[in-house]
């Protein structure tokens, strides 16, 4: 078996196009799959599914609460619905529908949250989603999955559709860097993946920042610091065993996510460590504030998720380990 991570990353590719292509592909695998969107199908790219399966696509208008409830009705009637709208709208406007019917009622609805994190960068803070993972991770029964590159989007979408219950599947709006070898990347929901091994500390990351984490780890290796990198694409159920093993074997953890440092991946890992194996933990992410309008990469850098933020978090974690 070869490596999971490509030696040289691929050319940036649109994450939403990768998602749209994956939806179309899944349409063939899952004959009972239906796709819904709330007047944003050209944003979330579910229009690609609509083009191939018009009779299995529904545009409910600008009505996110109805979007979720219509999907719930379909799920309870033998369909496999994938509901699409902006990430922040699932986590806020339609949250009660998600909680009562997807989480509590266990309606098997897949919620595809477009424009996750700061990726709707120019639309600004109203449309960005700095808190969706924390909000949705707190709901019983709802799995939370954050794919990273185009291969990850495709493979995890399939796993999401096969998963027996509701899933929140968080996506990025923009071009992302292909980091994985198609044939060697084989994700399972609820299982973290060791992408690079190391003994000094572990970076636990998810989403588009996986690429930056690998780059940061490679840079640290040149300075003689060897970090393990784990892609924790499933925030819920989080891979407790792997987290504890990394704590035991490397003695310090750093979480990296495109989200507030409160309650998302950092929160999930902190809960596991506190309960089972306390070691120093540094959390990289948005520092409990709203961002602003601007270019995506500039926002990621300014709001605490630059490569330098990642490497210095690793160094801080190592200091605390001593």
């Amino acid at each position, binding site marked *: 078996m070869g490596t999971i991570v490509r030696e040289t990353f691929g050319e940036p590719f649109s994450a939403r196009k990768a998602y749209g292509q994956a939806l179309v592909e899944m349409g063939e695998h899952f004959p009972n799959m239906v796709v819904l969107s709330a007047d944003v199908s050209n944003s979330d790219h579910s229009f690609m599914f609509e083009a191939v399966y018009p009779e299995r696509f529904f545009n409910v208008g600008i009505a996110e609460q109805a979007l979720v409830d219509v999907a719930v009705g379909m799920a309870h009637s033998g369909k496999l619905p994938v509901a699409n709208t902006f990430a922040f709208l699932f986590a806020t406007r339609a949250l009660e529908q998600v909680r009562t019917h997807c989480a509590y009622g266990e309606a098997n609805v897949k919620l595809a949250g477009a424009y996750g994190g700061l990726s709707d960068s120019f639309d600004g*803070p109203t449309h960005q989603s700095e808190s969706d993972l924390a909000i949705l991770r707190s709901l019983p029964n709802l799995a939370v999955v954050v794919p990273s590159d185009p291969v990850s989007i495709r493979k995890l979408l399939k796993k999401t559709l096969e998963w027996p219950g509701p899933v929140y599947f968080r996506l990025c709006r923009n071009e992302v860097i292909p980091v994985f070898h198609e044939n060697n990347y084989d994700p399972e929901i609820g299982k973290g993946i060791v992408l690079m091994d190391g003994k000094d500390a572990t970076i636990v990351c998810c989403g588009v920042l996986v690429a930056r984490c690998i780059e940061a780890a490679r840079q640290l290796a040149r300075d003689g610091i060897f970090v393990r990198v784990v892609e924790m694409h499933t925030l819920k159920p989080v891979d407790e065993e792997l987290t504890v093993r990394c704590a035991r074997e490397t003695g310090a953890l750093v979480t990296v996510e495109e989200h507030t440092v409160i309650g998302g991946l950092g929160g999930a890992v902190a809960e596991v460590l506190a309960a089972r194996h306390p070691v120093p933990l540094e959390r990289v992410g948005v520092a409990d504030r709203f961002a602003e309008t601007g270019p995506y990469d500039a926002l990621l850098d300014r709001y605490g998720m630059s490569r330098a933020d990642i490497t210095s978090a690793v160094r801080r974690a190592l200091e605390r380990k001593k």
Partner: protein
Amino acid sequence: MATTSNITVRPPRVYPRGTCHSPEMIADLSRAAWEFRIQVLRMIYNYKTGHLGGAFSIAEVLTALFFHHLRLDPERPDWPERDRLIFSKGHACAMLYPCRAYRGFFPPEELMTFRALDSRLQGHPERQKLPGIEVPAGPLGHGVAIGAGMAHAARMDGRRHRVYVVLGDGELNSGPIWEGALVAAKYQLDQLVAIVDYNGVQQTGTTTHVMPTEPITDKWRAFNWHVLDIHEHNMAEVLDALDQADEVHGRPTVIIGRGTKGKGVSFMEGDSYWHGAPPTPEQFAAALQELRKGAEQWER
């Protein structure tokens, strides 16, 4: 050709509410609405991001509000007696910003920073950054209920200022609009006026295709609102409707402003592609030419 600098907008005069709607005033406001479209085109072209279609369609309404109907004091954006404007269809703020700037709330030089890092002109309006923005907007559906809250509070305090809410027609898909409409009617909030930019297009297609909302006047009437049905690109009709709404007692008023998304640029009109797409250099030049012609027809 595709220059974005040297802003040439000539704002209209400010005609306080009550000024008689003379042909000169109507021409001045109409011309300014077209020039604001030019400003918006430049702003969106500058960083290749923003929402043209719904900004163009609301030009006359916002010009009428800011330069005639609203009681405002740019020196005192938090003046308690000011009329409130809730710009609920926040994505179209590229038209809100020039109106506020040229009305004196902030320097027009800032307009070209729209959507840049560090700009006060966020992609959707941010309350804390710009003087006079009453509430943030972007997520659709909030305006009517917030307006009802403001109108109710005004009445409790014995204040006579009025509350104007600007909505999109796609936005009417959203449940909270109708929840707010029930509240406003229940409490007979006649200081509240909603204006629907009834341009027939939302993000992914026509309203007929995405989510039919007809018969629209019957719906609002059934919710016990007073309904005015006008052409939103006809300045005289806009001005008259705003005056008429002032005379309604015991119920809130909705103005259905029938018009065209992308108004003023032939290849943008009625096409949902232009909801959120930026123009190419060629499209920019062609659009600029059409908008200049539009403005010229009102030169006197």
